[in-house]
């Protein structure tokens, strides 16, 4: 498959180059090129990984160069821009256009990201007077974690026939990621022990998109096919899992071991699954007088090749924009998506098999929380009230109906929104817009069995045949529907632009959002954010330009902090 993609990429480039050569025969109206050759020196002091997150500098002089080329003729334009900073930082863009029948773009980007090493220093403690212990081990201290990401993207658009303007559209992207990253594995019993090791990164993603488009009168129909594969070619990282025995005395192996899926073994950890995704999309768009409309239907299927599970998405969308009067427009949007993921049976050993009491079966069928119907609709009316004032009102609804959701009464989230916006514009020199939006949700997304339970909510019975009550029994007592996701939100967005003359330009913005969850009277769950911003550009004189600006972003959230009263 990789070979196919490489060939495809080369073909795309060949096509682009062939046309460029052909275009080269045409008289050039303009041709310019420039080359910049130089060098840079980068010096880091103290901790380099945060300040130099996206830079890779060595304490030495490194060569750099850049190239710019532009060629224009009656019937063609071709440009090439490239920048080489070092082997890890390269940008290249190439663009070609022949008449209105062919265009091709090619992009290459190489970038670099560093990451720090978590020394796990906080993971070291022992229970006072007891046996529980928490320890850690760094197998590779001083490792230099990084990701080098290289991306090649090409696209072209070729008119096959002037009649009906039949066009072939294709795009391809390959992303290669190499490097090393930190991986932390945790093992229970005989202590909670975490080990940090270095895992190799070697990921490759290939994506292609190909489609056909044709004009039928004032309408355009199209079909698009998409395909993506992701593979990790790095060796699988492994970790050791301890023998499940009493942390102090080394006994009770049978009891502790009976609670574990695996122990005293070396197993793979942190695997990236190989995935494959394909999609089909039909589109239909058109104009009729002052109205525009469009619709699409798409189907996609993503498969995790490691576990052979698939998810499918069948979606449709439509929009209609029209003039209600000379200075009033209506835009209506609608979309629906049906998402499904295959369920899977998780087969586990019996809990405390062979121990006193009745062993418990924790096998379960994993029904995906992604399975749902997602429906959206909105209507917006925009009206020019007078020469300076434009107002718009919009309203809409979103319904998310989840098929398998453990929280009772929370499987369907319905959100209404209403929005009003007013814009005042005085010529080209001054404009201000104020937008207010209100959202109201019922049954927002909830982390079922995530948060706390009240004392004595129900009676816990000990496990059959034993005198024990286990922590997992309490999980069922947790509230099913407490969530910090808001049930109502208020959003205000103000922007203003003032250009008193050709020398001065001032932009001011203010955004604020307040939301809360008012489902529970006893909990005050809310979020508030605001961000004023300002940007000023001044052309003091033809020689001197100054820009200044600033922003203050403030966010505050209030939510519950809970802990089970349990001493297990």
């Amino acid at each position: 498959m990789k070979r196919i993609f490489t060939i495809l990429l080369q073909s795309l480039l060949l096509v682009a180059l062939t046309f460029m050569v052909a275009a080269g025969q045409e008289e050039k109206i303009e041709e310019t090129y420039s080359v910049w050759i130089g060098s840079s020196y980068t010096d880091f002091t103290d901790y380099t990984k945060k300040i130099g997150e996206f830079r890779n500098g060595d304490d030495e002089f490194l060569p750099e160069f850049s190239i710019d080329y532009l060629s224009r003729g009656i019937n063609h334009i071709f440009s090439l821009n490239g920048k080489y900073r070092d082997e890890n930082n390269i940008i290249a863009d190439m663009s070609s256009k022949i008449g209105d029948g062919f265009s091709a773009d090619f992009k290459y980007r190489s970038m670099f990201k560093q990451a720090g090493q978590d020394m796990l220093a906080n993971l070291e403690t022992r229970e006072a007077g007891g046996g529980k212990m928490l320890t850690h081990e760094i197998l590779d201290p001083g490792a230099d974690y990084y990701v080098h990401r290289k991306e090649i993207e090409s696209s072209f658009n070729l008119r096959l026939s002037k009649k009906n303007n039949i066009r072939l559209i294709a795009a391809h992207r390959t992303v290669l990621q190499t490097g090393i990253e930190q991986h932390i594995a945790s093992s229970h019993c005989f202590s909670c022990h975490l080990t940090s090791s270095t895992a190799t990164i070697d990921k490759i993603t290939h994506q292609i998109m190909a489609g056909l488009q044709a004009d039928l009168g004032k309408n355009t129909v199209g079909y698009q096919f998409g395909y993506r594969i992701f593979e990790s070619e790095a060796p699988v990282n492994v970790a050791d899992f301890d023998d499940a025995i009493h942390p102090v005395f080394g006994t009770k192996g049978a009891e502790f071991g009976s609670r574990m899926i695996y122990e005293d073994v070396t197993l793979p950890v942190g695997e990236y699954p190989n995935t494959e995704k394909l999609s089909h999309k039909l589109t239909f768009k058109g104009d009729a007088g002052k109205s525009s409309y469009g619709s699409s239907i798409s189907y996609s299927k993503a498969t995790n090749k490691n576990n052979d599970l698939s998810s499918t998405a069948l979606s449709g969308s439509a929009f209609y924009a029209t003039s209600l009067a000379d200075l009033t427009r209506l835009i209506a949007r609608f979309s629906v998506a049906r998402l499904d993921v295959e369920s899977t049976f998780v087969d586990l050993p019996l809990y405390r098999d062979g121990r006193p009491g009745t062993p418990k079966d924790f096998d379960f069928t994993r029904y995906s929380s992604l399975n749902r119907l997602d429906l959206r609709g909105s209507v917006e009316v925009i009206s020019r009230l007078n020469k300076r004032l434009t107002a718009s009102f919009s309203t809409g609804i979103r319904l998310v109906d989840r098929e398998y959701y453990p929280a009772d009464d929370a499987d369907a989230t319905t959100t209404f929104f209403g929005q009003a916006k007013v814009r005042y514009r005085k010529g080209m020199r001054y404009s201000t817009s104020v937008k207010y939006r209100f959202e109201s949700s019922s049954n927002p997304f909830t982390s079922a069995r995530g948060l706390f339970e009240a004392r004595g909510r129900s009676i816990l019975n000990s496990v059959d045949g034993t005198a024990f009550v286990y922590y997992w029994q309490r999980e069922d007592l947790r509230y099913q529907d407490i969530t910090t996701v808001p049930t109502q939100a208020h959003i205000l967005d103000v922007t203003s632009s003032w250009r008193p003359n050709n020398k001065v330009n001032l932009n001011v913005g203010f955004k604020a959002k307040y939301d809360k969850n008012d489902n529970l009277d006893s909990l005050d769950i809310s979020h508030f954010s605001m961000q004023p911003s300002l940007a000023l550009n001044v052309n003091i004189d033809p020689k001197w330009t100054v820009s200044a600006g600033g922003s203050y972003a403030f966010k505050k959230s209030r939510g519950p902090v809970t802990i089970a009263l349990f001493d297990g």
Partner: protein
Amino acid sequence: MKKQARPHSFLFGVFGVTLSCVFVLFTSLVMAKTPPADAVPVGNSVCLDCHDDVGIDFAKTMHGTLLNKVSDNSCESCHGPGSAHVENEDPDMIINPARQNQFDGKSTCLSCHNTDNFSNWAMADHNAADMNCSSCHTIHSDDVAWTSGKINNLCTECHLDVKASAFMPSHHPLKEGNMSCLDCHDPHGGGATFAHESSIRELCFSCHPEKEGPFIFEHAPVNEDCMLCHSPHGTVADNLLTQTEPALCLNCHSMHFHAAIEGWDGAFTTPQAPERAGTTTADGWKEGMLTKCSQCHTEIHGTDLPSQTISTSGNALTR
């Protein structure tokens, strides 16, 4: 008792639509500027009599190069026949594409630039905000934003909050020039090239496919919306998280009950493996459990590999 959501906003929206219908009836008709029906072309030389500075720069541009070679009326190919404008010196008697807006029907630019990139312009947010092609593109002089840096500067001239987010400690590398706004957004109203469906999740997975799964052991918010935990423009916390751990996780989860264990104060070794030694304080379990949840729960986006304990049904996302 749980309150039922009342659709305030729906009623608000209905009221708004009604109000705007009322406005429609009373709105004065201000027609878009177009030349009179009997206007005729006058030729570039007449235009340059008054607008020579524009003409000089325009000749060097892509549009100028193309149009000047094939026609002596390149100015009027966009601005319409200019005889009435010349005779009356009236700016309202010529087409000004820079003043065209969503109420003027299809813009001058779209009469030529009608490929799929721009076919969603009718429903684009920028169009609804009364922007037109000239808001971002300069036609009379060459300033086409070919490179990431220029595009990012252009977008952040208006989107000041996004510009500020790029300077936060955790950010996509926009200000470094390694990414551009166009990698996620289409200012003309369309969708991203490689996002197979139109959803936030799909957009994120087009560059981060290893997070998509589907996995055997899932984390429900990943299936819901990436933005429940992440803010893609920039954040103070690492990994574009809206809050640092554990505060983020405590929004939905109780603390690990081991956080309440009294810690050992001093040096210790693990009896079964003496090489695992350390020193700690009475708050050691709190530091261990309440600093960064993903130190143990590493596979937070989902995994196919079960965690160790049977009673969690292997669903603890630690492996």
